[in-house]
């Protein structure tokens, strides 16, 4: 063997000089991975690694987590508060006191002139639970606006709504451990390898130990669809039809768990009468899945001892999002697959703390899954906060997707955006631009001052990011985990909790209420509010130390419990007043914008693994961004030939809303009548989307739109594309 040099230099392998590893939880998606951030001798965060003993990720991280320490050094961070009178002026630097004074003053003026609800607040799924709780307290209790929502309306609202309708309360009933137990896994519009790689790995590990059938419902041949035992390439927006038809077969062939239905559910008869219309032959004509396959899947699912369904945006982001979730719950209720190991309806959530905002932000009501509509809940919270219960609205106000139209028509004059970027994330962004221009007062609170929405803001508040702060996230399987102060806030940026708590002092009610800049104080308040025999969202058995020691604890975790419960509803008791779950009939009406001769392609959108949401963070980390530094569009090569379009050239996509220039990637993973564009990029796919709203969840249908494809001058297109990429 040839070895080369005998006299060798020392081998040099990069040594980042880590002297300490600090525990925290990943701030991207809702998988909830435990991370250790390596700190070098001079206190810089230089490395990230998955925590070996953490149950969620067991030492693994996805590409985003692996480079998460680089976030602290990303470009474009907010340095100091900025103000200006009009969005046409230049920003001026200011200090925090002046900024918050002016902000409170502006809010009060708008509320005095146009009513309390004329100032709206739209937050995020990215900040810490304690911050959500404080923001809810501030918004509901001190500012007193009912037009308060989170951007979770763009991602998880349908799941929330569906869970509430079926079970009486929000909260995914299952956990990742269910993969180890299940005998059949049905995935709807969920591309785990791309969107939730760690959850995919947990599933893969389970599958390598014990093979179970995987069925994937998705119009694209995603990696998950490719690896599935059966891939159901469904027509966009018709999941409810498929679900009804599966139920038809299960009932028709007497495969339903009648005992479970009898004991734990209501509404079966009415359900059955609607389901009768969805025999597999009729259903196949609508959803595009042949009748044999429908029967086959229904039998497989119903006959499995334990079967589970997961879903993500393929269900949620549709005009039948909430119905889709209810349909999945129906399927699991009639087969007795709720709350048992390996049998569950598990929504795979989007943002790192979408669950935290659902639990504690008061967006959809009051903290701890309480409702504004419930007089006892209003009284309870008002008493605890020390305010007059009459100050609280008696009904939930507008959703995020209704707040923007209310600005458009002049009912809302002021807006506070926290950690969200509607200029890129909302459907039909040209409408959003026009809307934002109209505001008398727009405050953008974000970690990045180059977030596109700052273009129309009057004030920018620089927030600290992720592990520059202290608090908790809750993940998809209801696991509360710790985010700790790994780094100091960048320059003069402040933790969101600090901002909320300092703004509260500028409102009359705020002075009456307890606000703390210390996250643990807020956590203790939440614990108090979570106590109660019938409350599933009980975190009173948790403490910061205990959470970190256990690498996260699932709720319910009642006072005195050593650990939290893995699953909800295992006892068959549901939060509806009668203690039973509802099986809800789902008549299907096709209200989607469908392809026609003028706009012949379905436009579908989704995520890629290297980016998160609107790229404000991941677009600035080279080792992630390089995998897709610019937007692209998947298109079927056969349709491209017809239009004379070539691989890796630019095209112009046109919808009834607007146009977008994008680079074509020809691939057979997508049907001939569909194109797919990742949603992360500014001035791209959401210039085209319609985003019809789901009637229950008000979540937009991002994935069902019609477009046509046109050829463009390549040089001009390239230039337009470069100019649209600020980062």
């Amino acid at each position: 063997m040839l070895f080369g040099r005998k006299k060798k230099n020392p081998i040099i392998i990069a040594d980042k000089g880590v002297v300490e590893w600090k525990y925290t939880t990943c701030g991207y998606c809702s998988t909830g991975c435990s991370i250790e951030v390596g700190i070098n001798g001079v206190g810089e965060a230089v490395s990230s690694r998955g925590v070996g003993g953490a149950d969620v990720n067991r030492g693994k991280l996805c590409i985003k987590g692996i480079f998460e320490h680089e976030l602290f050094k990303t470009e474009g961070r907010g340095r100091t508060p900025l103000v200006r009178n009009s969005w046409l002026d230049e920003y001026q630097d200011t200090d925090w006191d002046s900024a918050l004074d002016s902000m409170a003053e502006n809010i009060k003026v708008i509320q005095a002139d146009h009513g309390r609800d004329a100032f709206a607040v739209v937050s995020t799924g990215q900040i810490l639970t304690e911050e959500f709780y404080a923001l809810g307290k501030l918004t509901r209790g001190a500012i007193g606006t009912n037009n308060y929502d989170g951007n979770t309306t763009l991602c998880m609202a349908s799941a929330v709504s569906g869970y509430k309708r079926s079970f009486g309360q929000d909260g995914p009933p299952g956990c990742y451990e269910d993969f180890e137990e299940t005998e059949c896994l049905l995935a709807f519009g969920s591309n785990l390898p791309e969107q939730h790689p760690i959850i995919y790995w947990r599933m893969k590990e389970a599958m390598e130990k014990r093979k179970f059938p995987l069925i994937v419902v998705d119009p694209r041949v995603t990696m998950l669809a490719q690896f599935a035992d059966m891939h159901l390439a469904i027509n966009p927006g018709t999941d409810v039809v498929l679900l009804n038809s599966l139920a038809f077969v299960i009932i028709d062939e007497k495969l339903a768990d009648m005992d479970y239905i009898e004991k734990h559910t209501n509404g079966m008869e009415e359900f059955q009468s609607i389901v009768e219309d969805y025999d597999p032959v009729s259903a196949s004509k609508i959803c595009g899945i042949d009748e044999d396959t429908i029967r086959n899947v229904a039998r497989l699912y119903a006959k499995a001892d334990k079967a589970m369904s997961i879903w993500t945006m393929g269900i949620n982001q549709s005009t039948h999002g909430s119905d889709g979730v209810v349909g999945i719950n129906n399927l699991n209720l009639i087969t007795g697959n709720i709350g048992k190991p390996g049998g569950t309806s598990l929504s795979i959530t989007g943002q790192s703390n979408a669950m935290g905002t659902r639990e504690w932000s008061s967006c959809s009501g009051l903290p701890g899954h309480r409702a504004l509509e419930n007089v006892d809940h209003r009284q309870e919270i008002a008493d605890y906060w020390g305010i007059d219960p009459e100050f609280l609205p008696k009904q939930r106000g507008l959703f995020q997707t209704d707040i923007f139209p209310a600005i458009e028509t002049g009912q809302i004059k002021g807006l506070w955006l926290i950690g969200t970027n509607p200029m890129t994330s909302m459907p039909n962004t040209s409408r959003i631009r026009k809307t934002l221009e109209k505001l008398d007062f727009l405050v953008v609170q974000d970690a990045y001052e180059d977030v596109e929405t700052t273009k129309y803001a009057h004030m920018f508040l620089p927030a600290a990011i992720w592990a520059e702060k202290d608090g908790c996230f809750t993940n998809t399987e209801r696991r509360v985990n710790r985010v700790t102060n790994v780094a100091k806030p960048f320059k003069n940026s402040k933790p969101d909790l600090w901002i909320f708590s300092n703004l509260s002092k500028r409102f009359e009610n705020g002075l009456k209420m307890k606000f703390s800049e210390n996250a643990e104080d807020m956590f203790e308040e939440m614990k108090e509010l979570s106590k109660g025999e019938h409350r599933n969202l009980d975190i009173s058995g948790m403490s910061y130390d205990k959470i970190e020691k256990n690498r996260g604890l699932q709720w319910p975790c009642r006072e005195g419990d050593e650990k939290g419960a893995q699953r909800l509803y295992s006892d068959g008791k549901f939060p509806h007043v009668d203690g039973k779950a509802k099986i809800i009939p789902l008549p299907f009406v096709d209200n989607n914008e469908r392809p026609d001769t003028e706009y012949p392609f379905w436009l579908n959108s989704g995520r890629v693994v290297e980016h998160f949401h609107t790229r404000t963070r991941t677009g600035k980390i080279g080792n992630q961004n390089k995998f897709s530094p610019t937007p692209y569009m998947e298109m079927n090569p056969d349709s491209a030939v017809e239009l004379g379009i070539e691989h890796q050239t630019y095209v112009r996509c046109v919808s009834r809303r607007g146009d977008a220039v994008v680079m074509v990637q020809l691939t057979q993973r997508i049907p001939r009548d569909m194109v797919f564009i990742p949603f992360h990029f500014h001035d791209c796919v959401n210039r085209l989307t319609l985003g019809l709203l789901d009637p229950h969840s008000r979540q937009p249908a991002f994935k069902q739109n019609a477009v046509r494809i046109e050829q463009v001058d390549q040089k001009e297109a390239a230039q337009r594309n470069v100019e649209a990429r600020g980062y």
Partner: protein
Amino acid sequence: MFQVRNDEPQYAFLNDETIKETNCYGKHIQTVDVSSELHGKSLNINLDSEIGENPNRYKQHGFHFTADNCIGCHACEAACSEKNDNPAHIAFRSVGYVEGGTYPDFKRLNISMACNHCDDPVCLKGCPTRAYTKFAEYGAVLQDPDICFGCGYCTWVCPYNAPQLDPVKGQVSKCNMCVDRLEVGLKPACVSACLGNALNFGVIENTPENREQAKVEIPGFPRTDITNPNIRFQQTRDMPNEMTRTDSMSVKYHKDIKTGVFEPVVDKKKGLQRSWSFDKLRSREDPLVIFTLVSQAVIGAFLFMFLGKLAGIESVVQIVNSSAYLPMIFVLLGMEAVALFLSTMHLGKPLRFYRAFNNLKYSPVSREVAGIAVFFNSLGAHFLAVLVNSQIAGVELLQQVATFFAYVAALSGPIAIYFMHKIYRIEARPFWNHWQVLTAFYGNMLTLGSLITGLFFVPIFMFNNLPVTDILQLVAGLMFVGLVVEVIGHYFHAKHMNVKGREGAVSYYEQVTTFGKTNLFRHGLLLINILVSMALMFVEQVSVLSFIVWVALTLSVLTASLISRAMFYVMVVPTTMPGAFFWKNKGFEEHARETGLASVVEAGIIADTH
């Protein structure tokens, strides 16, 4: 030593219970035995003198890749870059893919690839500086960036794209097998990070738990007989007969129905339209275009005079004995000095140029440089001896010294060109790996050597009213021979590339499409040059017409040579791994540079700084 965590998960630990004696290439898996002087040494990682306790330290290790499972999530690439602190434009490991079928019967096959720590590491043999070492420990092939001078030759010879030339740092770096982790019993970072349970690692030929295959081919992976790579695959899912690449390379993979093995074939992505693509003739290797042409011309010119005199050809004797001989040698030295300067500046680290001689035993680069150095210095010594001799007139010893160095130069020149040609005989670059390189180089030596000799002396002779017909006829004749030799090479080369298929055929496809018009133009020029030089062999009288024809021929020969040599460098298609749509896609990189997308550091594309 690398720190193993208290809660290190089980999957991160190496786990080789039994070990085979030999690998699938018939070589021993044990690298050395206890008696070897290479045994029991510290790897000296970051100056740590401890010795790892891994029981399989002297066994060849390698990656195992279950292609069935790879989800293309980039976790392996990310973990690698994070650990090795690599900037966005450098990656020791990359994931690309091939895909095939028709919706919804569609399959994408992701391939994650780093260095394969080959049994026969061509990088180690090719590197002129001896920056590469194959370690007895784990059989790891490691490269030392502190020795490397950034010539990039290893990136040419490696069939798998493993060595990474960093244009910013001007040096190569590559996968280090995470030997620091191996020393403490941990698998490499990429393997521990894999989220599809696709990537694994261990003593070579061991099939990991839950896996059934350890084969050496999957669609998209280059042939293994070049280097005997230490990677094994599992790929049990049936793939469509034709798998295409999403990157700009005009290659696809076609299944041989009998063997089930995929072979690279031409994918006519750009249609059949012929273009000029003059702008694409420029490349990072531009200095080498000049260096090779000039060196061949200089050597040719010297041989013209030396051999002509030796053979007693009257006109050449006249040249050598003339007072213009010394200035001519001076001009040749000057030309070669410029060429050497250009080729040195082409290195990532030009100040380390002296390291080029480190690997005379194996590297054709070292041998070429040595050959050129001997030629250049002999020519210089010859020049000095002749110069001094002409001043002091008639010292016998000086005369002998001059003659001696003339012989050395005349011998070392053609040898240098032979090794220059050997540089390009790379198996991983089929377009180059043909004897045509030799005919082109020697052909150019004859053509250009004769031409510049003529260019230099004919005007001087004419000015002094001396006869030039003989010289011109000789020059035309030698050019004719050189051109014919070159064209014969081109003919057989094209034929061979077409027959052999694979990446060579892809180069040929590029030659007749992207450079189709340029190629025809070049062929046209060559043909004209042959005919004209043949005609000029018989011209007895110098006239205005013949003068014009000579000027035209000169321009035409220089143009054809430049185009030919530039095409030689840009048309080569290496046996690389398939890229992705953006990452490792040459077409997108070029586009990003042209349009300014590459100006953002986070795009991970850096404009070549050479």
